[in-house]
């Protein structure tokens, strides 16, 4: 041996602590694969239970593993910031897994691989959140994306295939653009390590065109993942085609992962060039907010409506990225945290309402829901009001922090556009609430979705947790916000 192993360990800084959550998740996925092998088809639901137990056990590990020093030669950084997002990912994954059990049985596509692909997607997100190197980021991104391509196609229906194919082709293309952006970054900086880039940032000429090209390409790649205008066209189809629990995870998890890296990237390595990218993101944010909210109004399918609503939300969250100071970043993190609960809650109700044949997702199916299922209608109204940003819900508080950060940094116009988009989005959120409370069901559709929606224990638990969290985050946001601010301070 020429190399001294200890010395290599020293320079690479192999710190298994830093990757403990990811490692445990990988172990979980492998265990699931093995168990799946021995299970009969009718017993696949037990995989869901194992997945759930595993995720719940890993959650505290992921929340506490904090080691701000970069590990593995600067590839990975397991700081409080990564831990915060890991918690968001795992919570979202837990919700998705719990409602999947019943949902998969309903659409009769119970398959073992479903569960460990969800775990792989989550691992990809976690790698992205703790990536300190563009290459590592790309690995995480691809792991997440490939898992989602499969998950979206899981239903094996025409809409599922259409959505998955659109998502796959466009996603592969955007990955290529992102990768091209990474090579440009390497070209001008000579490194892909974020810490190194941040260090040399001051020395670079501010008029470096390669840098600008790199920024544009990286932004395009990420804008695809958060479904920002004009890179949003895949999302309604993919959302509609995927099994609803996957849609929920896709809308929360992949968005949070992209924003996690967005903040680390633009808040750390590229913060020197704020003037260069802020304008670009400003336009992206404003356009995304307005387009998402406006197009959502015309939707007749509730999943598509929620897809466009999630586009509008991405625009609002982008305000925080444009502002990019400590307060704004913490606001983005808080927003993602709240969004995980309220959006998951809304999608859980949608999953509950869906019928065996995949219908029951039209907004008119919600007519008169309050008369038959008052509690279900009430929580759905709560989630929609929270998504619309009406106090005293968590959605309001989150939006409030983002708008406040924009006002503080004097982005008045962006804040005003955010308000206008919020007003527009009230139309379609309120429409569903009005349908539930103020309309009678159509004669043809009478009773069908409502009576065929058995509230199993799993749905009830998830709905209860998400509803209570949405309210609590609105009334006392302090603990989570403090955590977010503390996490951001180390970026």
């Amino acid at each position: 041996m020429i190399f001294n192993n200890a010395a290599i360990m020293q320079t690479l800084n192999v710190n298994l602590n830093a990757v403990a959550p990811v490692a445990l998740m990988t172990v979980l996925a492998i265990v699931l694969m093995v168990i799946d092998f021995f299970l009969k088809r009718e017993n696949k639901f037990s995989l869901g239970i194992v997945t759930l137990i595993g995720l719940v056990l890993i959650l505290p590990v992921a929340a506490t593993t904090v080691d701000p020093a970069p590990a593995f030669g600067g590839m990975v950084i397991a700081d409080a910031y990564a831990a915060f997002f890991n918690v968001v990912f795992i919570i979202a994954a837990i919700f998705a897994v719990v409602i999947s059990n019943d949902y998969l049985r309903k659409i009769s596509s119970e398959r073992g691989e479903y569960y460990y692909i969800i775990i792989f997607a989550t691992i990809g997100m976690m790698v992205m959140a703790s990536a300190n190197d563009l290459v590592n980021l790309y690995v995480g991104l691809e792991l997440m994306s490939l898992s989602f391509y499969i998950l979206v196609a899981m239903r094996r229906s025409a809409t599922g295939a259409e959505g998955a194919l659109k998502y796959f082709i466009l996603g592969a293309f955007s990955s290529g653009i992102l990768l091209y952006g990474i090579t440009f970054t390497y070209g001008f900086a000579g490194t892909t390590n974020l810490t190194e880039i941040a260090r040399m940032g001051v020395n670079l000429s501010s008029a470096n065109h390669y840098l600008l090209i790199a920024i544009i390409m990286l932004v395009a790649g990420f804008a695809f993942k958060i479904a920002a205008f004009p890179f949003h066209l895949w999302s309604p189809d993919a959302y509609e085609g995927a099994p609803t629990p996957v849609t929920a995870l896709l809308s929360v998890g992949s968005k949070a992962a992209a924003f996690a890296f967005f903040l680390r990237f633009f808040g750390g390595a590229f913060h020197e060039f704020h003037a260069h990218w802020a304008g670009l993101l400003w336009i992206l944010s404003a356009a995304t907010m307005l387009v998402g909210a406006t197009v959502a109004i015309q939707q007749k399918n509730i999943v598509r409506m929620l897809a466009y609503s999630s586009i509008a939300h991405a625009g609002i969250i982008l305000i925080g990225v444009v502002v990019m100071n400590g307060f704004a970043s913490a606001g983005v993190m808080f927003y993602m945290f709240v969004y995980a609960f309220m959006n998951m809650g809304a999608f859980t109700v949608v999953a509950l309402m869906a019928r065996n044949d995949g219908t029951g997702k039209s907004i008119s199916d919600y007519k008169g829901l309050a008369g038959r299922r008052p509690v279900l209608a009430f929580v759905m109204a709560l989630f929609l009001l929270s998504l619309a940003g009406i106090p005293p819900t968590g959605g309001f508080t989150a939006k409030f922090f983002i708008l406040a950060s924009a006002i503080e940094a004097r982005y008045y116009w962006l804040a005003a556009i955010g308000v206008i988009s919020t007003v527009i989005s009230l139309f379609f959120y309120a429409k569903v609430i009005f349908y539930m409370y103020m309309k009678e069901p159509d004669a043809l559709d009478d009773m069908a979705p409502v009576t065929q929606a058995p509230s199993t224990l799993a749905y009830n638990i998830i709905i209860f947790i998400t509803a209570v969290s949405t309210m609590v985050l609105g009334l006392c946001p302090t603990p989570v916000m403090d955590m977010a601010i503390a996490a951001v301070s180390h970026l």
Partner: protein
Amino acid sequence: MHEIAATFPILSTLIFLPAVGALLIIFFARPERRELIRWSALGFSLLEFVFSLYLPLTYDTANPGLQWVERGVWIKRFGINYILGVDGITLLLVLLTTLVTIVCVLASWNDIKVKFKWFMAMLLFTETCSLGVFMSMDLFLFYIFWEAVLLPMVFIIGIWGGGRKLYSAIKFFIFTFVGSLFMLLGVLVLYFYHGAATGVYTFDSTILFQNPVIPAVQFWIFIAFFLGFAVKVPLFPLHTWLPDAHTEAPTAGSIVLAAVLLKLGTYGFLRFSLPLLPNASMRFAPLLMVISIIAIIYGALVTIAQKDMKKVVAYSSVSHMGFVMLGIFALNIDGFRGGLLQMINHGVSTGALFLLVGMIYERTHTRNIGDYKGLMKTMPVFGAFFLITVLSSMGLPSTNGFVGELFILIGAFQAYPLYAVFAVVGVLLGAVYLLWLFQRVFMGDFFYNGKHVLEDLCFREIITGAALLILIFWIGLCPKVFIKSMDASLNEVVRLVDVNSKKALAAAQPPVVAAVEPQAPASRVGR
């Protein structure tokens, strides 16, 4: 005993008691037990009213500041607090709210047929949120209640309304939501400018009152606040949601909308816009007075043309709320007195008119003026109630409307005599549409275009109406009690506007320029 009285959170109790009642009704009353639901709703609103009587009994009229103050830290990092307080501006509004809720519960006794318990719960939630708006002295808390009050009202219109209820509910929701969101932006700008100037980042209005921001910033914040408040008032030309909402809402919804919710807007101007943004208020005052006069005259003219009784009352609200705005933006003590008193008066008189129109509608299901004639013959008690209310609404001496309008006109005359002259035209037009309405419906030979039997008022209806009629005469005959309760706090507003406008000007000018005699006040005196 005194210790307990000093520490007992009376205001929090007042705010949350109706909500507790609403929750109890929702969770424990079965939908088919109408008797239980209506009596417990009445019980809670009566209990609430009795509790609120504690305020006037222990109120110190000499103290201009907040009383029974409760303070708690909510979100420390951003200076968000839980601050409640009642002073001379809000005392009467709180009492009006608690009284009107009883009237609303009684008015929907038989009126509401479906989802009865939810309706009563919504009424009580509305009470909680409106009391919260009146008592919150922290701008964040204020905003929370301000938005929250929308929801039960939207449901009341949308679920129990008639005709185009969905359209009206959505219109109401969107209009007010747009306004409030811009108000939120204004609050944030104020928060950050105040924080940057003083180093204290807080939403506590009692601290914000001390250090006004510079006039250039006030200008924009005022516009933002204006959008939020003026939609609620509603001030011409932002009033178009009002006729729809009022017409389609059930009787109790119309009453609470007119008596309480419209007051939130004018209250916001008086409480926050004036002391926080004095320079901008002075700058905008002439414009706002002109808009108010347009609202008064335009509202009155449109009212004359209505064929639906409820629309008459609804459009007359636009005119009457114009008077309130005229008084407030006269920016002198008489205008404030009149504006605040007229807020109460409008709540009582217009609330009573909606109540009475609701009573006849409950019997016949038509509000068309042409369907009735000479009702005085068959329903004398109802006619008498209606006549008194109409006279009070048009401001006949010895009724409440006269006192309020008089103060407003005095205030407006001191500010701009010409404006007062135009406003008097509005008073005349008010007499036209109100008396004409009364003449068409109640005078002449009896005629009713329908089959229903027209019975006179029952005991419950007499009690409900009498509660408001007593106030009409009480305020009309001895206004001194009411004026006295508000004077100290209104004088404080006058002082704050004066002091703060000078402070803001001084802060805006560099020290060297400050040595030069300021020109602006002199020119104001000159006119």
